[in-house]
């Protein structure tokens, strides 16, 4: 019977299957960070259990780390980072600590070091683990109890997921990026549209994207409520993985390639749900509300609550407009942010920084605006510096920072002040996400960069 990519990857990881029980799936790669792991390690310690496969476990520090030279001013952040260092040492786990080569956002370093490969089952105590699905891996975000379970057993019980094909066809219009594709998809299917499903992004638009673009799309699968997002591996994938430090090499590379080429969804395989998107109709998206489905294109106006079909959405829109301090009918291009944030596991890779630098090169950030660039990893930072992107950003008036999650969720000192408004390349515009009382507008790197220059929401073409 023809099978989908998700089904193939799932099936090859089944360790135990019995009627009436979830499948017990083997985990090839367990990524660990400092926020969701301390209680899991402590529970192992109390139960006297070892980590079953420290050799399949990789840890880094990302959520709390300062993006300046330091020190870590918040003692509770420092304590959490120290706890991870102590746990990694005690349990024999490879750790990329703050400031070390290899450190960075867990979803940036996995791919760039070649840990992330097609066909793997990957988990992490972080919802944006879906990012790794861009390689044709089944990558699932888990909670701390599950982190403990994986540390102890290297497996995860999973009830079967449904599959959803999201087919995006056609060339992307000028000024549109992967970020606009995924914001458009979430706008269409809603924040709960993917619940219980593994999404597979398909079609000519997806095939034409770089791995960075595919990661941006898979990253935000969780914002549609999906359990995971995937893209079938192809030559673009293989070219990205080849030569990475932890990628197979020599004869192993050929064996791996043979295997990976068998992963894409078979012709005639059935999905539980299908959605089609015409890429040629996309425009750059800007979120106006407090969930990622509350967005419009940059050419639009802020909608009124009455434009929504059901009571819950109308009420959510009323609350969001009040929180965001926006009036229905306001042109998106007339909204003026205070802060520009380019970073996060959604958009902090070299390609994102190149796009943004291309927009700001030779220009100046509008007066009064604060603008930050936070590379996703130490490796991205160094690569960007080798290309001189740090100078381009600094000359334009951006602050060039160290690697980490930073203002995406405000666990380090990079936060919005109450009432401040951001144009952010991150993934969540929830109330207070970037700092108490902060107001977040989600955008692509190109729009964030153009907005920094214009002082109001803009595309590069507007400049």
């Amino acid at each position, binding site marked *: 019977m023809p099978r989908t990519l998700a089904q193939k990857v799932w099936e090859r990881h089944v360790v135990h299957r019995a009627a*009436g029980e979830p499948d017990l799936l083997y985990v090839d790669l367990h990524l660990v960070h400092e926020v969701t792991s301390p209680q899991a390690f402590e529970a192992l310690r109390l139960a006297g259990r070892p980590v079953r496969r420290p050799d399949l476990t990789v840890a880094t520090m990302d959520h709390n780390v300062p993006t300046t030279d330091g020190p870590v001013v*918040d003692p509770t952040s420092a304590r959490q980072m120290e706890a991870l260092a102590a746990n990694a040492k005690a349990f024999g786990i490879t750790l990329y600590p703050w400031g070390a080569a290899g450190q960075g956002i867990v979803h940036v370093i996995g791919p760039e070091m070649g840990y992330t490969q097609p066909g793997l089952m990957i988990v992490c105590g972080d919802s944006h683990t879906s990012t790794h699905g861009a390689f044709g891996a089944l990558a699932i975000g888990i*909670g701390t109890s599950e982190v403990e379970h994986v540390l102890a057993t290297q497996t995860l*019980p999973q009830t079967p997921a449904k599959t959803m094909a999201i087919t995006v066809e056609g060339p992307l219009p000028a000024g549109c990026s992967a970020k606009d594709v995924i914001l458009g998809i979430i706008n269409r299917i809603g*924040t709960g549209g993917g619940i219980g499903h593994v999404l597979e992004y398909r079609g000519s638009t997806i095939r034409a994207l770089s791995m960075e673009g595919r990661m941006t799309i898979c990253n935000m699968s969780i*914002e549609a409520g999906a359990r995971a997002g995937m893209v079938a591996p192809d030559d673009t994938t293989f070219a990205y993985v080849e030569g990475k430090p932890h990628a197979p090499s020599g004869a192993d590379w050929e064996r791996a390639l043979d295997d990976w080429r068998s992963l894409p969804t078979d012709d005639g395989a059935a999905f539980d749900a299908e959605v089609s998107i015409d890429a040629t109709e996309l425009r750059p998206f800007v979120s106006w509300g407090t969930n990622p489905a509350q967005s419009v294109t940059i050419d639009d106006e802020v909608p009124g609550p009455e434009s929504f079909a059901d009571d819950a959405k109308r009420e959510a829109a009323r609350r969001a407009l009040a929180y965001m301090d926006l009036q229905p009918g306001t042109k998106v291009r007339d909204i003026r942010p205070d802060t520009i944030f380019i970073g996060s596991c959604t958009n902090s890779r070299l390609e994102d920084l190149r796009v943004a630098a291309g927009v700001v090169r030779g220009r100046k950030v509008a007066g009064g605006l604060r603008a930050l660039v936070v590379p996703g990893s130490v490796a991205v930072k160094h690569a960007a510096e080798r290309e001189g992107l740090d100078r381009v950003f600094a000359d334009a008036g951006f602050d060039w920072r160290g690697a980490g999650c930073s203002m995406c969720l405000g666990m380090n000192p990079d936060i919005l002040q109450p009432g401040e408004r951001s144009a952010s390349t991150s993934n969540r515009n929830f109330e207070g996400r970037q700092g108490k009382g902060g107001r977040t507008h989600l955008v692509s790197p190109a729009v964030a960069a153009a907005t920094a220059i214009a002082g109001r929401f803009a595309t590069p073409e507007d400049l």
Partner: protein
Amino acid sequence: MEAVRAVEGTAVPLDRSDVDTDQIVPARFLKRIERTGFGPFLFYEWRQDPSFVLNDERYAGATILLAGANFGSGSSREHAPWALEDHGFRAVIAPSFADIFRNNCTKIGLLPVELPAESVRALMDAVLDDPTTRIRVDLEALTVSAPSVQESFAFDDFRRWCLLEGYDDIDLTLRHTDAIAAYEASRPSWLPTA
């Protein structure tokens, strides 16, 4: 884990959809390395508003939270169910839940109960009308009962069994240690290692 067979008590009506885990417990409170003590941070920002329903004395001591669709969306932080539990909630009733949040709840014995939106609405109306209204969630019978509402709900069979018996996931999985070892022996040698 302690066995859970039923939850009975009064309920708080949180009439909002898409309540994300950043609202349930904001990120700046995730820096504790302990599993306990998150109750004071539950809905921290919303609780700054005196009119927020959780500040309403009439709902003090409630063990059931009623909420809108897609409850628990966003971040995978298990701190969200920890905070709900630490505050005293034993069940959340909503039209739908985010997958990771639902999983996290069942791991700690907090019941995520999915009912049709009309039934959740009816329960909210009942407790808005009379905050002393008692609701019973029976995990054995898979029913939710209140004076004005009788509804059955679906719950994953295996999860239900674990909760009813108080089984720990890791203990259950460790019964399959031989199968795990056999699987490991069959993995291709080219797979990545740390």
